[in-house]
C-alpha cells in the first residue's frame, strides 16, 4: 500500500504553475490585508488617544467586535453577505475583478486592524504624557505631535507584538480558501486531490508557511534592532 515519497513529481507542470499561482495569491492577500490592518489600526489607536469619551467607546466597540467573532465568520459575511447589500453595478465590478481577493483582504484586514490597534495602544501607554505636552508646547498640533513625536516611539515599543500579529495575519490568509480564493492552502489541496500525494502536498504547504513565518520574524527582529535607541 505504501507509496514511495517523491516530492519531484509535484514540482513539475502543471502542479508547479498551480503552486506558484497560490504563492502569488497568498502574497497579494497578505500584503493587501496587512496594509489595511496597519493603517486602520494606527488610525484607530490615534483616535482613541485623543481621550474623547465617544472616540474611546467607538474604538473599544470596534475592537471588541473584530476580536470576538471568528475570522471565518468575518470572511463568509464579507464574501456572501455584504455583496447582497451593494448596488448591482458595484457587485458586477467586484465579481469581475477578483472578488475573492478583494473581500478576503477586507475581512482579514478589518479583523486584524483590531489587534494592531491594541498593539499601538499598548505602545502609546509606554510613552510618558510629557512627550505629547512638550511637542504641543513647541507649536505642533495634536496630529503633528502624534506623527512626529509620539507614534514613532510608540510603534518602536510595540514592534514585538506587531511582528507577532503580522505572522498571525499571514497564516490566517489560509482561511480564505473557504471563499474559493485560490491561495496556497486551496491550491495544495487541489494538487493533493489530483495526485493523491497527500504527504508531499501538505509537507510543501507546511514548509512554505514555516519558512515565510520565520522569515517575517527575522525581518521584524532586524527592523527592531535597527530602530532600537541604544540605552545610555
Amino acid at each position, binding site marked *: 500500500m505504501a507509496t514511495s515519497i517523491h516530492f519531484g513529481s509535484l514540482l513539475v507542470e502543471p502542479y508547479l504553475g498551480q503552486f506558484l499561482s497560490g504563492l502569488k495569491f497568498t502574497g497579494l492577500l497578505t500584503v493587501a490585508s496587512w496594509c489595511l490592518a496597519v493603517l486602520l489600526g494606527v488610525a484607530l489607536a490615534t483616535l482613541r488617544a485623543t481621550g474623547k469619551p465617544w472616540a474611546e467607546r467607538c474604538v473599544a466597540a470596534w475592537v471588541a467586535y473584530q476580536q470576538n467573532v471568528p475570522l471565518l465568520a468575518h470572511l463568509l459575511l464579507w464574501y*456572501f453577505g455584504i*455583496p*447582497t447589500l451593494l448596488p448591482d453595478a458595484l*457587485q*458586477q465590478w467586484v*465579481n469581475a475583478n477578483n*472578488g*475573492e481577493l478583494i473581500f478576503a483582504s477586507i475581512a482579514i484586514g478589518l479583523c486584524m486592524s483590531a489587534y494592531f490597534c491594541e498593539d499601538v495602544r499598548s505602545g502609546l501607554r509606554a510613552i510618558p504624557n510629557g512627550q505629547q505636552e512638550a511637542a504641543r508646547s513647541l507649536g505642533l498640533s495634536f496630529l503633528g505631535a502624534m506623527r512626529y513625536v509620539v507614534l514613532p516611539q510608540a510603534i518602536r515599543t510595540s514592534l514585538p507584538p506587531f511582528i507577532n500579529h503580522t505572522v498571525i495575519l499571514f497564516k490566517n490568509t489560509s482561511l480564505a480558501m*473557504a*471563499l*474559493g480564493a*485560490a491561495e496556497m492552502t*486551496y491550491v495544495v*489541496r*487541489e494538487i493533493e*486531490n*489530483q495526485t493523491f500525494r497527500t504527504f508531499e502536498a501538505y509537507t510543501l504547504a507546511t514548509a512554505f508557511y514555516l519558512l515565510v513565518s520565520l522569515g517575517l520574524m527575522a525581518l521584524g527582529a532586524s527592523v527592531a534592532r535597527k530602530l532600537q535607541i541604544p540605552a545610555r
Partner: protein
Amino acid sequence: MKLIKLFPALAVTALTMAMPAAHADQLADVKAKGALTCGVTSTLEPFAYQNTSTREVVGYDIDFCRALARHLGVKAELKVISLESRIPELTQARVDVLAAVLGYNPARAEQVAFSKSYFVSNQSLSAKNGAYKQRDELAGKRISTVKGSSNIPLLQRVLPTASIVSYDDAPAAFTALVQNKVDGYILSEAMVRRFIAKLGSNANFEILTPPVGREYWGIGMRKGEPALEKAVNDALDAMEKSGESQQIFDKWLGPNTIYQMRRDFKAETIPG
C-alpha cells in the same frame, strides 16, 4: 498423535468459519430466506429519505428494491446504511444487494459487481437563464463546484480553458452562481433542480446541454454470484419493458415533481 490426525479437519473447519460467504448460491439463499435485504441510504431526497409523516424510508432507490424483490418472488427488507460504509456492508454480507446511489467507477467495480444501470446521473452545467445556449459557451468562464468533487477532472477534460472555483459545499458553490461570482455551476442534474426549486418562482437558472459527464448507477452485488446477477438484470429488463422503471422515474423525478426531469437512459449494461 490424535491431535495431528485431527489437524486437517480443524483446518477445514477454521477455513469455512472464516468465509461465511462461501456458500453455493446467494440467490437460493435469498429465496429460502424469503426476503431480499437491500442496503439503502436515508438522507438523499428523492432517492432515499425519511418521509416525515410516516417515518418510513421512501424514494427512488427504495421503489427499485421493492420491485426487484417482487420479481424475485420474495419480500423486500430495507437496511439503512451510511454512504461511507455501504461497500463493506455488502462485501461482509450484512446486506444482499445495494440500492444506495451507487455510481459506477472502475475502483468500485473491482470490489462490487454492478447490475445494469437503473439510473444515470447527468453531471451538468447550469447558468443564468438565457446567458448561454449550450455547454461549450462556458469555455474560459468561471465555474463553481465543490472541493474534491469528481466533477473537477471531468470539467478539465471537456472545458480545459474554464477556470474552476471550488467551495466547501454544494450550497456555497450554488450561492456563488446566484450572486454572479461565477458564470456557471456544475453538479448532478437532480441536485441542481432541487436548488433551483428551493429558490422558488424568481429562480432564473437553466441547465445547459449536453451534460459534462454521465454517472451510471447500478444495483451493487457481491462478486461471484452469477445467478443473483442474472436474476437482478432480468428483473431490470422486465421492468424496463413493462414501463415500471419509467413509472418509478416519473414518480420521483418526472414532470410532476419539482425536478421536472426526463428519463434519457434505459436499463443497459454499464460501459466499463
